């Protein structure tokens, strides 16, 4: 059995404030797992056990749901997450060069985390910003019309 971790009190409060807005507790599962990543490193088995207890549902179901969604990290990730779009409009406007430059500057491949633990690089599907393709996000910040020669500056900004 997984030992559940202590949920951050702010997270508990966040959930409790929202329970009355839904007919069932488990409706808050996905938002809770997303919010949890502000306070906990990632959706570890212990964290999922604690969320299951809070929402009064089986931990196995929490894990099943968590495994479906890409924004819920099931493994430890870097301090900053870089999401770079590799879908069609970004492809047509040169995202492949941007991604190649990101790999080069970070010294890690798509799907990996830099050795110093600062960045995790992932490719994502259309970010609904195709009018300014190619685009990428560093944490919550969107960068538009990205050129490979801007990568250095963008990474420095996040540091």
């Amino acid at each position, binding site marked *: 059995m997984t030992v559940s971790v202590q949920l951050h009190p702010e997270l508990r409060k966040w959930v409790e404030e929202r329970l009355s807005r839904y007919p069932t507790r488990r409706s808050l599962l996905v938002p809770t797992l997303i919010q949890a990543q502000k306070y906990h490193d990632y959706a570890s088995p212990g964290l999922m056990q604690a969320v299951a207890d809070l929402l009064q549902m089986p931990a196995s179901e929490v894990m099943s749901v968590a495994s479906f969604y890409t924004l819920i990290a099931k493994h430890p990730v870097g301090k900053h997450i870089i999401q770079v779009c590799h879908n*069609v409009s970004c492809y047509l406007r040169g995202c492949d060069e941007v991604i190649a430059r990101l790999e080069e500057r970070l010294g890690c491949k798509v799907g990996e985390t830099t050795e110093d633990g600062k960045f995790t690089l992932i490719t*994502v599907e259309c970010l609904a910003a195709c009018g300014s393709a190619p685009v990428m996000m560093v944490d919550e910040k969107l960068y538009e019309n990205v050129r490979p020669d801007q990568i250095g500056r963008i990474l420095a900004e996040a540091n």
Partner: protein
Amino acid sequence: MTELTKVVMRLDGVAEAHRLDVYEANGGYKALRKVLGEMKPQEVIDEVKASGLRGKGGAGFPAGLKWSFVPQDHPGPKYLACNADEGEPGTFKDRWIIENNPHQMIEGCIICAYAVGLSHIYVYCRGEFYEGKRKIEQAAKEAYEKGYLGDNILGSGFSTHLTVHTGAGSYECGEETALLTSLEGGRGHPKIKPPFPASEGAWRKPTVINNVETLATVPAVISQGARWHAGMGTEKSKGIKMVCVSGHVERPGIYEVEFGVPISAIINDLAGGVWQGRQIKGYFPGGSSTPVLPAEKVDVPYDYESIAEAGSMLGSGALIVFDSETDIVRMAEVITRFYAWESCGKCTPCREGTRWMLQIYERILNGGGRMEDLELLLSICDNLEFKSFCPFGDAAVSVVRSTVSLYRDEYEEYIREHKVYRRRFTPVKH
């Protein structure tokens, strides 16, 4: 010269339009005051029906008709799910509305809730829309404070509430019934229809699901009248549409136009034509889920019927243009990977078929394709289309079938010459 007809985008360029005071100073919430003060719920539904407003999320279903399917006398709660999951590749209009004019969407939601008698509005917002979620939450807070949301709205006796619900990175959750499963706290799997959401939706209660742009059009329909709206566009595609133009054009962006303008006019007059002086090779009229149309069909009028007649779909309004230099096989692989990785996995034809198609694309691009692969691709398409549980499966075959038939020579060249596509990176599913 093709003119823009700004309705949903009427506050484009107005500074701070996302703020309640700015929105009100520009006529905001007048439509809500009008329906609460002067109109019975049924009259609102009739007005929206008469306007000819069709859903802007992809299917183009008449909005008023959808609203009328919800049983009036149903005891207990009924819901509105505002679909702000915007995931169709090439589409970026809902994000614009949410970030620039969230009150217009919220006003539309409240009018819909009043017309249909819905007690709670859930705005299902894409997880990646961090800024958008903050904007809607702030706008909802302002609307609550001003008495536009909550109990006894503006003293009318009508009450409804609004909650912003976050998605977590799944294209399939934009499909209306998968959205409901996700809202209920499950994996984003669609539900069987019937029962349709209008009679049994979220938490098995009657639920209306509409796209952000659809709902953001409603205040204008109420303020300016059904006849005004119905007077725009074509006979069957009435009104206006925000067209998202992306890909190889000089000025990608969102252009709101009346239905019926020629697609070439949108591309050339509004989006500045194909970039770098090149020629257009083809385009997706309605996002990656819609079959590609060739350059010869660029004068098709922009409306549901004409685009269907030309062999594709208007979809969510994402016009993706590609030029004569485009590597069609690689482009089709990019999109096929998207469908393979976003397939929710509930049904076999789609779960397996999309992955097989992706493997064949990889084989061709790695120089190991065989001529039979083209027939194999088409036969997988036949086994997916109309045999999948939800429309995702049909969407996944569009690019494959249309590009194999329109640009077969390019596939054959890859295969015959064992041409290898030089990858700049290897995508990883996560």
